[in-house]
């Protein structure tokens, strides 16, 4: 990795924890991944093979923000139809809602650069969350932000996110797509995204975790190749000390990995039974009997649910057209 020397130097100075944190953030924001975009061969309506497009994508950004550039580049050779951009790597459709850096770190073999991706504009695959145009990504981002706000401080802060002035929202979104750490920080300062205890809820931070779980072999989707979770994580341990990322990951990994083993083979690890992640099936059964017909079982078919859905967004807030 380049451009990450400064944080190391900063650690040498006793008083520079804040400074080093800033440097790490800046390096994170500045990180870009070179992409080599090749148009899907069945979407080339011309006789020649178009040359690939080389582009840079911010690690903290999203693939659809590169799509506009790709569309402009490949537009002339596309067959007639509506443009719904999506990307694949080694035949794995890449979810548009996952930051580019996360996808790269999860999937790219041997840190290859540029990262060779195939870009499509037709036949949007079912395995990805539904794409309803550029507003989809922004809406998903703000929805995530709302969930984060809820985890930090409850619905009061969620309301603040919803009530953000349109200008502030635009500034925030532009900062994300343009990799502008400073502008992002200046908008976020007004949101006070800090953990706070409320009622019985202990102060927590939102955490999203992707774990590559197999190497080599056929991967049908990112889903089958990774373990994923997104959840609130308490910041204090039982003793009242601040938990480190290491401690949190250790706890979380033991749960996630045990669950994964348990679903693929019988038995699993004995320690899993004492973890709250195991749901109490009995109480659910009890309630079912109590309420009789009110409860309807929904079968857990193997069939992939048709994802997408639901505009989960506020039209006032996000100016999203109703597509329904």
């Amino acid at each position, binding site marked *: 990795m380049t451009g990450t020397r400064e944080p190391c130097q900063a650690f040498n100075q006793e008083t520079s924890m804040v400074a080093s944190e800033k440097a790490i953030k800046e390096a994170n924001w500045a990180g870009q991944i070179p992409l080599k975009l090749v148009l899907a061969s069945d979407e080339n309506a011309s006789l020649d093979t178009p040359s690939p497009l080389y582009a840079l994508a911010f690690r903290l950004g999203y693939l659809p923000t590169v799509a506009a550039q790709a569309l402009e580049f490949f537009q002339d050779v596309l067959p007639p139809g509506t443009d719904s951009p999506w990307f694949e790597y080694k035949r794995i459709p890449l979810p548009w809602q996952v930051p580019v850096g996360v996808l790269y770190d999860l999937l790219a073999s041997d840190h290859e650069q540029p990262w060779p991706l195939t870009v499509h504009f037709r036949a949007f695959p079912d395995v990805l969350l539904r794409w309803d145009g550029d507003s989809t990504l922004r809406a998903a981002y703000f929805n995530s932000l709302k969930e984060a706000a809820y985890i930090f401080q409850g619905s009061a802060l969620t309301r603040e996110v919803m009530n953000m002035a349109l200008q502030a929202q635009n500034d925030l979104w532009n900062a994300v797509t343009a990799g502008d750490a400073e502008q992002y920080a200046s908008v976020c300062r007004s949101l006070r995204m800090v953990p706070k205890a409320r009622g019985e809820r202990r102060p927590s931070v939102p955490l999203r975790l992707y774990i590559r779980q197999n190497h080599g072999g056929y991967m049908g989707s990112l889903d089958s190749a990774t373990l994923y*979770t997104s959840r609130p994580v308490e910041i204090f341990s039982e003793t009242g000390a601040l938990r480190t990322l290491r401690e949190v990951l250790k706890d979380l990994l033991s749960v996630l990995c045990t669950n994964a083993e348990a679903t693929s083979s019988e038995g699993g690890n004995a320690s899993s039974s004492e973890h709250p992640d195991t749901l109490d*099936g009995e109480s659910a059964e009890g309630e079912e009997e109590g309420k009789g017909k009110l409860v309807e079982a929904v079968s857990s078919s193997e069939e992939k649910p048709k994802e*997408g859905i639901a505009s*989960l967004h506020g039209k006032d*807030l996000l100016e999203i057209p109703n597509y329904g």
Partner: protein
Amino acid sequence: MSDSKNNQVIIFLRATGDAPILRQQKVKISANEKFSKIVEVLRTKTKSEQVFVYLKESFCPSLDEKISVLYEAYGSEGRLTVNYANAPAWG
């Protein structure tokens, strides 16, 4: 750990705004399903392609998230309450 088939969560579907109130407001869904499954169920039940879904009357979680995790984080009294609306209710 029990067989995943027995591992189910009760979802309480609560109508918001003008959304139709369902005859069956509770459904049982496998804890291993994703949140998108609930949205799919609501779409079928409300006979509408467009449904807005919220937890805690404030946000919609990642559609990729497992119901077990959401139940653990946001459930209470043995169930997970999901609000649904046919127009944006909480942004």
